[in-house]
């Protein structure tokens, strides 16, 4: 019971505190509502990135991987929506700055990381929707998704860390560290589970043929 509460508490606090801290940022006083919305959409997207690996790994007590996988699809859709709001809102706020970012000609070092992460997120979303129609084998799909997930997490974390914006530094770094840790953990676990399953299958085949 204590462990259950602890895990949920850590994850909820890790996502809620950065959002609350950003809501107290003095910079908000000098921003339009649309710019504020676009910024928060980015923070929410980073927060969802903590839930994504945790859901897949089934690390949340009460949410086993079997259910978590389904929730992961919906939170993934919310992530896509957040990214679209983030980019569209910033585009309307200052078109030349967003166009520079999308064309990789921006002076800000964090922009290309964000844009690459955006394309990787959209690629995962498109593949998730079309993979059956495209005849993508599950194994290929999982491999591609995992590679893109690494691009998404690294891109987003670097993007977020380099930005001087409304996010408070300590809570931002903590959330980024947890996102990376959760991603590494689920990748390692998935690799281990698959390896174990392969070994089991091999043993089963060996046993039945004997």
């Amino acid at each position: 019971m204590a462990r259950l509460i602890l895990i949920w508490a850590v994850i909820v606090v890790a996502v809620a505190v950065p959002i609350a801290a950003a809501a107290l940022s003095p910079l908000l006083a000098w921003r339009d509502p649309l710019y504020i919305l676009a910024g928060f959409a980015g923070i929410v997207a980073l927060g969802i990135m903590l839930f994504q690996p945790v859901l897949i790994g089934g690390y949340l007590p009460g949410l086993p991987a079997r259910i978590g996988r389904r929730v992961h699809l919906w939170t993934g859709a919310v992530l896509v929506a957040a990214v679209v709001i983030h980019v569209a809102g910033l585009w309307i706020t200052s078109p030349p700055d967003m166009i520079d970012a999308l064309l990789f000609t921006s002076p800000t070092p964090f922009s290309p990381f964000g844009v690459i992460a955006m394309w990787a997120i959209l690629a995962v979303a498109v593949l998730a929707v079309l993979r059956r129609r495209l005849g993508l084998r599950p194994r290929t799909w999982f491999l591609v998704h995992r590679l893109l997930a690494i691009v998404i997490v690294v891109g987003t974390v670097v993007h977020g860390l380099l930005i001087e914006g409304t996010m408070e530094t300590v809570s931002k770094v903590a959330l980024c560290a947890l996102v990376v840790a959760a991603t590494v953990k689920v990748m390692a676990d998935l690799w281990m589970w698959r390896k174990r399953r392969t070994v089991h299958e091999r043993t089963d085949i060996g046993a039945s043929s004997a």
Partner: protein
Amino acid sequence: MSTILLNRRTLIAAGGAVLVTGTSGLLLPARADDFAPTASMPGGANNYRAGAPTVDRIGKGGFWMSGTVRRAGDGAPLAGQRIQIWAHTTEGREQDPQSHGATLTDKNGAFRLEMPQIVPVFGQPHGHLAYDSGEFKTVFLRPVMGSAKDTSLEAHFVLQPA
């Protein structure tokens, strides 16, 4: 074996570089290259509004934008040059007309314009400056503040004939 070679090679290259730069610096202390024309910075022209009025101060002030304007080659200070300045400040967004203003350089080629405090926008606390008067080639600068708490920022122009 290859490591040793690489180390030696690096050492020779580094030593050579020091020698070349060291001696050339000693032999030619003030070369024309020291005043190479300033290139426009990426994003420098973002939210530019042509023809910003020449003002004594932008808005209520409190922040100082300063710099110099020199001629490419000999570095002679250029007096009476119009520099346009804009930024996202406590009093307005980059694209708002009230965020824009222009000033002229003095006889030493220096300019200084008071403006509202710049606040970070699009991830960096930065300002924009433009030379766009036609006599020299247009240059757009986008200096970044070392800290968002800074109350001044500098930008320097070396202009070449249009």
